[in-house]
């Protein structure tokens, strides 16, 4: 924690190494969040890349050093929202497109869960993703998506229940 604050201070002076060290703590979750929201490896890589550049440019505005993670996630989630909006304008039929989330050499439970996750709605993926990878609370997510905190909770809980039920169904099926 202490060390983090020092790094933010350094990063604010424009030190790429310090920034990279901060980035190192979050980049896996940034990418995971982007990928599960967008379901496209390539787009996920793009938005995380853009986020890094934006964040590096704007880090001087970060007052509270400990908040780096929340701050960079917010930048990323905005980009993902934009991207999702772009998709709807372009009309990408995800039924047709291969769900890249479930692309894998071997078929495991995790792969199956990711496939099911990819079948959730855009908003559901954002909400769950922001919670799981961004660590945001429903009230904070509500603020970001302009929804009521209650609605966020309801939707998240519905999405999770949906996943749990399908996973269970699959398990029951497997066990005969």
């Amino acid at each position: 924690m202490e060390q983090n604050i020092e790094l933010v201070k350094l990063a604010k002076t424009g030190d790429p190494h310090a920034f990279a060290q901060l980035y190192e703590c979050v980049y896996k979750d940034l990418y995971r969040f982007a990928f599960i929201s967008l379901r496209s490896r390539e787009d996920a890589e793009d938005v995380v890349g853009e986020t890094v550049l934006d964040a590096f440019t704007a880090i001087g505005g970060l007052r509270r050093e400990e908040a780096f993670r929340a701050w960079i996630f917010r930048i990323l989630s905005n980009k993902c929202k934009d991207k999702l909006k772009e998709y709807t304008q372009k009309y990408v039929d995800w039924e047709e497109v291969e769900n890249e989330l479930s692309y894998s050499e071997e078929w495991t439970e995790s792969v199956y869960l990711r496939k099911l996750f990819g079948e959730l709605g855009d908003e559901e993926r954002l909400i769950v993703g922001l919670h799981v990878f961004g660590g945001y609370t429903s009230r904070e997510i509500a603020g970001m998506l302009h929804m009521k905190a209650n609605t966020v909770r309801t939707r998240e809980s519905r999405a999770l229940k949906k996943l749990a039920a399908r996973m269970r169904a699959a398990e029951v099926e497997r066990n005969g």
Partner: protein
Amino acid sequence: MDRKMEKKIIQEIRKSAEELEIPEGLLPENVEARLETLPRKNEGEETGAARPRLTQKGKQSPRHRRIRKMFPALYGISAAALLLVCCYTLFQNGLMAKSGSYDGQDAQNMAMEMDGEAAQTVRGEVDSTGAPQSATQPPEASRTTTGPDEAPRSPETQAVKNDSQQARRFREAKRDAGDLYKVASNYEEVYNLLKQYEIVYETEDGRSVSVYPTEPADNSAFGVDGAFVEKEEIAAGSYSATNTQVAGVDESDIIKTDGVCLYTVKDNKVYITDIRGGELSPLAVLDPTRGEQMGDVQEIYVEEDRLIVIASVYESHLVEYDREETMALREKPMAQVVNDAATVLYTYDTSEKTAPRLLGTIRQDGEYRDSRKIGDMVYLFSWENGLGARLETTKEEDLEWLPTVNGTYISADHIYLSEKGYNALLVSSLDIKHPGRVLDEIMILCDDEIYLTAQSLYLYNGAYMGDAGWVTQIARFALEDGVLNAVGAAMVEGTIKDTFAINEYGESFRVLTTCQRMDDGTVDNTLTLFDLELQKKGTLTGIAPGETIYSARFFENMAYFVTYRNVDPLFAVDLSEESQPKILGELELTGYSEYLHLWGEDKLLGIGFETDPQSGKRLGIKMSMFDLSDPAGLKVLDSVVLKNRYFSPALYQYKTVLASPEEGLIGFAVGDEARSYLVYGWEEDGFRLLLEREWDGDSCSLDQIRGLYVGDMFYIASPNQVVSFDRKGDYREIDALEIGE
């Protein structure tokens, strides 16, 4: 309700995402190399002065377009909010008009009772300037602490109207909880602490804009559910009570009985049904949040002549932001409908079951988190998620950023500061004999979980300490006649996996934690003993290496817990020598228990799964009874495996379990495709199935089904229906009723 299940699936999502391969271009070293090539700005500038603009890199125009496009949508939102208010009023009127066979008269009654309150609480007019209008009385800025004020003795005089909190009997200053939570010395200190979370951006034209985003909430914060178990106290006239964590400490639930009536929370109302003799007849329906803009009845308590209803209520405000600021700050819309949540506790006199009378209400800011009731004393917990966001729209001197309890700003000397972010837990206490009055209240800046005994409130939470790994921070507050005051704080290695792994007995406090070493990833478990000042007395480390705790139960000076790795070792640990806890016995059997319940003096009931010892594959739900009479020689007396049954809410929500050693009854719901409720008897060292009742065609979730008994009758109830059975006549079905129909 089933947060634990949600938590589980969240963990699985996380796990499955961890397998995703990260593209090379995003690896930190490659990113760093790319950043190196950027022109280095701010060179030589001072740290604080470096304020590059967010709207750089030629991204301006699309950004602005996007914001402009948002306007129609935003007006849409505000219009929708207004519409919602109107609809809601209509909806309520409509509902009250046809409250069916549940006596509508009471609703009238209610409306009258509520008038005084309703006049104050009709909110939600969003005026055209967008300024939020709150009809709450402008809270007193400073608390006048008067001398010991005799409470009005007759409940009539204080019915409906909230007592003023000025009648404050307790003036002992709040103490710090070690270094963990420190009492604030004034509002300025609180404000400045929250202010730290501010992020300031500079706009193109050089103005500063501040926001308070999002401190990531501690991921472990949402585990509340767990906790507790044990049959409750006052089983007078022998009827079942909610299964709780601590004997004698009641917990709120959606369905309860007082031995005469069944009280059911459904669709934001409370239905009262006469259930005597197994004959079911509707008596009354209460609509406590009528008059609120938006209400959500959560849970209830019942006892002789008293019904306590806890609801979350929401008020919508339209908050508009400065246009320029909005442009500069892309994530912030021009205006936003903000919902302020409050928790309201209503106390009713139910001496006349058909016409309950509202005696008083307590209202505090924040969403309902939890509550506990010990005799007449109720502790109400709510939480404010993101207090800092309030700073965006209010001024420090207006104090409107402060949460209120019963219309009064919480005073600075009742606020505990911490370094844990700006989520706040509000705790208030009341005596239901004087139901409009708050006895004491505190606010702690934390997201902690709650463990409450008759004499203590423990707040605990996991914290990540970098190389040192995960620790659990614990603070203890002493409870005395409803007054809360901190005693101390402590830290233990590892995290608490099961809500029953934390326990106070007499003068000692103990926790079981699972520790993962950061260096090699190995796992083991630790038992730590404290005194009530939270001074460490003894530890037992290195328990069950490679395994984590699945369930736990303390009984007096013994700890029992289950760890798991294909087989289920049940441990018995003697705690009587505080400085030297020792493992007395260890019993291995197949499967594992997710829930443990003490059965009489010397037995332990476990509910969990049977597994294949080779593959670890689950074979079905398993129930076992352990004999504890010789801790060194633990034995299984009997067990039952429900083949092909893989799911029961008993595995994660103790409130759904009925376990009564006095009556020899065990009940819980199971369901995968087909749902049913099972009732077992424990007789002469063996389980016996008494009733298996299918429960299909009910839209409720499995964890909303409860089993209850009153004398010779047994009831299975959900929010939608109740069915009665004769315990003395082979559980013959007697009557059935759809609630609210």
